[in-house]
């Protein structure tokens, strides 16, 4: 690791905005929250992956991966963040370095030429250049190449110097925010500003979740000025310094960025979530209060309350018909862990029993909330090995697993309904109506006749007692292999 990078990483971990971090003694704090990766047992994404996750939803930017094929080639176009317009972000650009390029030291030249080709062919507002392990190791100075290219072609080329080996996906998310702070934010001035301009950080508009929220903001006259990076345009990132308030959505990784923006431009931030009815209301309330504190008209608060009352009533009415269909079902919740309690309380409102929840990335305060809601610490899991999860599901201690895609097959192989609540999911579940969609998805899943079908004994088993859940003799518990490694955080 170059010294500059080491320095950046060190700083990223020294995060006063992070409650977990503050609670640690000084020595431990320096080590940061990155646990050392265990050879043979780690399968999470790398820092480069994390940087990509954070920045790729900037939809009009060309994202150029400076690497041999694997880094970009194996990862492009695999996430569900949606765009309302430009589609350039879905194009996979890579310098595709060959052995010869590497041996002959032609990496920088090739990168420069690649940037030129992108400018000529696609004319994007900016090009983000991602470093990766190999290019970092051979010492390609992407910052210098970007600088030269920016001057030569007149289109900003932004170095995202976050090679994979720097650390985990989570670290990559942090560093991506840092890169934006250094190179992009504050470089464009908006033509106009309003008293109700906000930034949203940490939302990726997966399958359009941002758009489930946006109408609420539209109605309150709140404008999303800056975004990192849901459905964002490059100019929106560049103008973030002019917003009045920043909302940090379910993300600890980007808290450093939010804090730095507060320090530099005096933009206060709050953490909130759009999952669940009460959380959505809470987020809107906080947002309006803070905007008013910064000079927005005071009636914003009343209008916000009226909107909340109307929307909550609407959502509750829409949920009512599902109640009898999902009531009494037992859910095992296994998510990235942020604000688990918000989903837990939302599900409980519908008479769904939450038999356990992960608190992998939750703060102490979040954990306390879980205890408060669920009444017992025994239902909280830090990590749950796939084998244990499988056993829990098999023993029918839960009828639904709600998790990220990695645990999907644990549930399916245990013939248990599974609902995707992380990044790869195909339906947006944000806001009031998103909650209705989520419950509809739960209903559709648990009440699907397929479960009864796949649990039916085979004709050659029919003579033996039909236990329903019993597996054919040949199948075994899935090995706790890399794909199912629960230590891999599923989002940033």
């Amino acid at each position, binding site marked *: 690791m170059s010294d500059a990078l080491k320095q950046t990483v060190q700083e990223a971990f020294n995060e006063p905005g992070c409650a977990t971090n503050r609670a640690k003694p000084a020595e431990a704090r320096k080590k940061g929250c990155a646990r050392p990766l265990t050879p043979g047992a780690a399968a999470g994404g790398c820092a480069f992956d994390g940087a990509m996750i954070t920045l790729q939803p900037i939809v*009009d930017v060309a994202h150029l991966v400076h690497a041999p094929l694997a880094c970009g080639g194996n990862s492009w176009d695999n996430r569900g963040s*949606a765009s*309302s*317009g*430009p*589609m*350039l972000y*879905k*194009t996979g650009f890579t310098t595709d370095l060959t052995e010869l390029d590497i041996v002959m030291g032609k990496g920088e030249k090739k990168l420069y030429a690649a940037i030129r080709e992108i400018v000529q*062919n*696609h*004319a*994007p*507002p900016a090009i983000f250049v991602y470093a990766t392990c190999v290019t970092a190791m051979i010492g390609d100075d992407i910052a210098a190449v970007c600088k030269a290219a920016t001057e030569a072609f007149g289109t900003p080329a932004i170095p995202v110097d976050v090679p994979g080996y720097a650390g985990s996906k989570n670290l990559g998310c942090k560093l991506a925010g840092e890169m934006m702070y250094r190179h992009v934010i504050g470089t464009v001035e*908006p*033509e*106009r500003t309003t008293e109700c301009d906000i930034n949203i950080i940490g939302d990726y508009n997966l*399958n*359009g979740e*941002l*758009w*489930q929220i*946006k*109408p609420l903001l*539209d109605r309150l006259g709140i*404008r999303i000025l800056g975004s990192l990076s849901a*459905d964002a*345009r*490059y*100019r*929106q990132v560049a*103008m973030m310094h002019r917003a009045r308030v920043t909302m940090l959505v379910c993300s600890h990784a980007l808290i450093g960025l939010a804090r730095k923006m507060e320090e530099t431009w005096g933009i206060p931030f709050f953490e909130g979530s759009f999952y669940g009815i009460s959380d959505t209301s809470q987020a809107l309330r906080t947002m309006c209060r803070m905007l008013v504190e910064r000079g927005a008209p005071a009636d914003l608060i009343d209008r916000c309350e009226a909107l909340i009352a109307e929307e909550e009533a609407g959502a509750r009415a829409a949920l009512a018909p599902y109640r009898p269909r999902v009531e009494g079902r037992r859910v095992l919740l296994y998510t990235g862990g942020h604000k688990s309690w918000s989903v837990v309380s939302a599900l409980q409102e519908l008479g769904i029993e939450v038999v356990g929840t992960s608190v992998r990335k939750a703060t102490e305060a979040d954990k306390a909330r879980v205890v408060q809601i669920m009444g017992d610490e025994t239902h909280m899991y830090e990590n749950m090995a796939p084998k244990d999860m499988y056993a829990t599901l098999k023993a029918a201690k839960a009828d639904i697993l709600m998790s990220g895609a990695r645990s999907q097959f644990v549930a*399916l192989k245990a*013939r248990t309904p599974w609902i995707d609540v992380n990044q790869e999911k*195909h339906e*947006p579940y944000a806001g009031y*109506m998103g909650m209705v969609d989520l419950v509809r998805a739960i209903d*559709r*899943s648990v*009440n*699907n*006749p*397929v479960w009864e*079908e*796949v649990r*039916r004994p*085979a*004709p*050659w088993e*029919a*003579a033996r007692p039909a236990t329903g859940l019993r597996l*054919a003799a*040949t*199948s075994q518990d899935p090995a706790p292999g890399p794909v199912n490694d629960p230590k891999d955080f599923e989002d940033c």
Partner: protein
Amino acid sequence: MARLTRPRRALSTNPLKSSAPLGAAMAYLGIEGAVPLFHGAQGCTAFAMVHMVRHFKEAIPLQTTAMNEVSTILGGAEQIEEAIANIRKRAHPRFIGIASTALTETRGEDVPGELREILARRRDFGDLKVVYASTPDFEGALEDGWAAAVTAIVDALVPEADPAARPEPTQRQVNVLPSANVTPAEIEEIDHLIRAFGLTPIFLPDLSTALDGHLAEDWSGRSLGGTRLDAIPAMARSAATFAIGESMQGAARLLGARGGMPVQVFPALTGLRAVDGFVQALMALAGTADAPEAIRRDRARLQDAMLDAHFQIGGLRYAIAADPDLAYALSSALAGLGAEAVAVITSSGANPIVELIPAEEAVLGDLGDLEAGARKGCARLLISHAHGRHAAQALGLPLVRAGFPINDRLGAQDICRVGYRGTRAFLFEIANAVLSHPHDAARPEDFGAAPIEPEFEHDRPQTAPH
């Protein structure tokens, strides 16, 4: 469970149905050395032939008695005799299957009687089996004509077994009567299942050797394969008769009675439950409590496929138009994964299986009803034969082709949706049709969100990658 409704109206818009004589001709083509013969006017035959040529991409030896105005009025016996004589000379068939048409049925001839008389008189026809089925176009659809033809074949060619003089039944031999919607590839799959249990099937008819699409060594004006003629009387000695499809119930009962053997009707072989039932019957017949490893594995793979596909199929609203047996087979398999048939259109009221289709109602209608029902029910996928493509286009929905005709795609004979393996392929087919449809991608407008401010947009044009 579907209630059958018959819309009262004069007009059929984009018909779903193919005619009964065509079904009969198709069944006859599954007999070795056959030439099907329409008793009717030339045009009916030409249309039916072109229809089948386009579906199977094969030359179809379909002949006609070429009734004209005079012969229609005077009676067609002479035309039939002449047609048989000519076909014999030209194509040297071993089997001629006659199907009546609307024209001759409207006139009302006693064809069976006249045929008996002809065959008795014409000794030179002795090397030939001739079968006649009454299949007026105005009654029933493709599957009804097919069933009528198979019933006629059984009636004419399978002798009544004398219970006293009856030899020991061949215990490992089983008769299988597939309905019209069973494709050549599906017959192969059923054959594979049956043989896996050490049993030997006789299919009647057998399109898997006739219309499977193979390049023959020689030009022949007859069917290219099919059930061997000497195997047909031998069916009386089988251990059991299986009908695949409710429409084959009648033919199967007749065959069962001829041979004094048990009969079992399998309304469908698509879907885990349906195939399990079939396998259970095979196990009982074979006297085993076990199944070969390959079959166990196929079942486990189907279960896995069901789990993978239920994300797309669960809650999927779709509309289907097909002959009753096919509509039942596909819709019951999809219902097993939680799909919802918002419109079911079917072609024939003769088949009681319609009542078991998992939908509120089944309309005896046309593709116009398919389009209207799909629109009204907010369907996201259509299933029908190739002509459903117009409805699919009008609605902007994916179409999964099933039934007859499929004239705008190749390989209709290779479609296999039965057995554990075929069901797996079918579920993937449906799930992929859903996945491949861009319909799904959310737009800000879907949620009522205002568009993004123009100020944020980059002012220079970009090339869109898609």
